[in-house]
C-alpha cells in the first residue's frame, strides 16, 4: 500500500476525520466572511409566508413506524446473508466435501430466506405495505383534456 504506516482501518479513520475537519474548517472560514444580522422575521420558521401554528414535533402517520419495523427485521436478516454469502461457495470447502457443504449451506439459507419471504408475504397480504392513497377530488375546472386521460397516471 501507499501508506505502510497506517492500518486499513486507520485509512478509514482518516476519511472520517478528514471529512469532519473539512466541514468544520469550511464552517469557520464561512463564519469569518459571512455577515450575521439576525432579526425576528429572518428567524421565523418558513411556511411559504404563512404564520406557523404550533410546533412540527407531533405524531406521524403510523405507516412510517410500520415501515421502520419491517425494515428493521429485513435489515437484520441481511446480517446473516453476508457472512453466509462469502463462505457458502468457497472452492476449497466445496471440493473438500464434494458438494455436501454447498448443498447443506444452500438448503439452510433457502429455508431461512423462505421464512423471511413468508414474513414479507404476511405483511403484504395483511395490507401493511399499501400506503394510504390520496383521495382524488374531481375539480370543477373544465379543462380541454378529457378526465379519463389522467386516469392512467393515477395509481
Amino acid at each position: 500500500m501507499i501508506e505502510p504506516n497506517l492500518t486499513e482501518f486507520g485509512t478509514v479513520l482518516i476519511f472520517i476525520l478528514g471529512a469532519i475537519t473539512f466541514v468544520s474548517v469550511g464552517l469557520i472560514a464561512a463564519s469569518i466572511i459571512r455577515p450575521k444580522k439576525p432579526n425576528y422575521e429572518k428567524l421565523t420558521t418558513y411556511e411559504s409566508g404563512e404564520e406557523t401554528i404550533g410546533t412540527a414535533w407531533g405524531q406521524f402517520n403510523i405507516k412510517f413506524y410500520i415501515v421502520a419495523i419491517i425494515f428493521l427485521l429485513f435489515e437484520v436478516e441481511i446480517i446473516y446473508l453476508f457472512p453466509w454469502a462469502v463462505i457458502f461457495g468457497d472452492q476449497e470447502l466445496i471440493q473438500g466435501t464434494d458438494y455436501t457443504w454447498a448443498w447443506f449451506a444452500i438448503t439452510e439459507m433457502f429455508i431461512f430466506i423462505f421464512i423471511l419471504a413468508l414474513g414479507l408475504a404476511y405483511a403484504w397480504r395483511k395490507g401493511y405495505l399499501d400506503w394510504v392513497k390520496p383521495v382524488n377530488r374531481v375539480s370543477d375546472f373544465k379543462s380541454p383534456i378529457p378526465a379519463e386521460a389522467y386516469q392512467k397516471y393515477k395509481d
Partner: protein
Amino acid sequence: MYAFLFFLNFVLIYTIFAVYAERKISAFIQDRYGPMETGPYGLLQTVADLLKLLQKEDIVPLAADKRIFKVAPLIIFTSVFAGFAVLPLTSDFGGSQIETGIFYLLAIVSLDVIGILMAGWGSNSKYALLGAMRSVAQIISYEIPLGLSVVCVIMVSQSLNLQEIVYQQGIFINAIDPNAQNFLFGIKALGIETTHIGGFLTWNIFRIPFFFLAYLIFFIASLAEANRAPFDIPIAESELVAGFHVEYSGFRWAMIMLSEYGMMLLISFLGAILFWGGWNTPLPNIGSVALADWTSGEPGTIAGHLWGAFWLVSKALLTVGLQIWIRWTYPRLRLDQLMNLSWKYLTPGAIILVLVSALWRLLMI
C-alpha cells in the same frame, strides 16, 4: 492519505461540474439555454454560486433545536464521504483495503439517514419534518433491495473486499488467486475459458447474465438512496419546497447539496465496481489482438494507474449522467407508488435473484 486528498478534491471538483452539467442538461432537455452569463457558456456559474454560498448568512430558526440543527449537515456529509474510503480507484490505488469493504460502505452510508432525520427534526418546520420522514422511509425501504442485490454479487465473488471483486472481473484475476479461472457466463460446463480474454466478458454483469436485472434493481434503489428524481418526494420542490433542508442556508446548505451529489457519485462508483468491472477495461483480448492488455497497464505501473482511473471514472460519470438524464425525464412517484415499487416488486425480485445466484455460483466451480 493520498487517497483521502484525491477523493476530497475529486468530489469537490466533480460537484461543481455536476451541478453545472445538471443545469445544462435540464436546460437542453427543456429546450432552454441554462446558465450563460458567468464565464464562457456559464462555465463559472457554479463557482460563483459556491463563493456566494460561503458568504451567505447562516440562519438558524428560533424554533429550531439548535444543536441538532447545526450538527446535522456534518453527519450527512461525513457519512457519505466516509463511503469513499473503501473504493479502489485503480488496480493499485484506492482507499482502505479492509476485508469487509462493501459491508462497511453500506453501513456507513446508511448513517446519513440519521443526519437527514436530525436535519428535519432539528429545524422544527413542518415541511422539513415531512420531508425528513419521507426521505427516511424511502431510504430504508430501498436499502433492502440494494443490500440484496449487493449480496448477489458477493455470493458470486465470495469476497467483501471491493478491490478483490474488481480483480476477479478482469485479466489480472490471477494476481490475487493464482489458480482462479473465468469462464464464459461463469458456466464451467461450457468450457470456454475467458480468464485471459478479459474485457467486458469477465465483468460480473456479463459473467452472470441475469445480473442485468440485479443491476437494474441496484440502480433504481441507488436513485432512491440518493433522493434523486423520480424518487425525490423528500425534497419535492413543488410541495415541500426543499424538504428536509428547507431551513438551511449558506455553507450548511452547501454541505447538504455537496453530500447529495457525493452520494450520486459514490453510488455510481459502487455500481461500476460491482457490476461493470471497476477499473477493468471493456476491451477483450481477441486472439493476437490483445486489446485488453493494451488498454490496461500492469498493476502498480503508471500506465496501470492511469488506465484504471480512466476506465473507472468514465464509467462512474456515465452513470451520473444517466441519473441526471432520468431526473429530467421521468415524473415524480407518489409515496404509495414508491413504497409499492420497493416492497412489492424490487424486494421479492431481489430475493429471487439471491436464490438464483446461489445456484449459479455452483455452476462456476
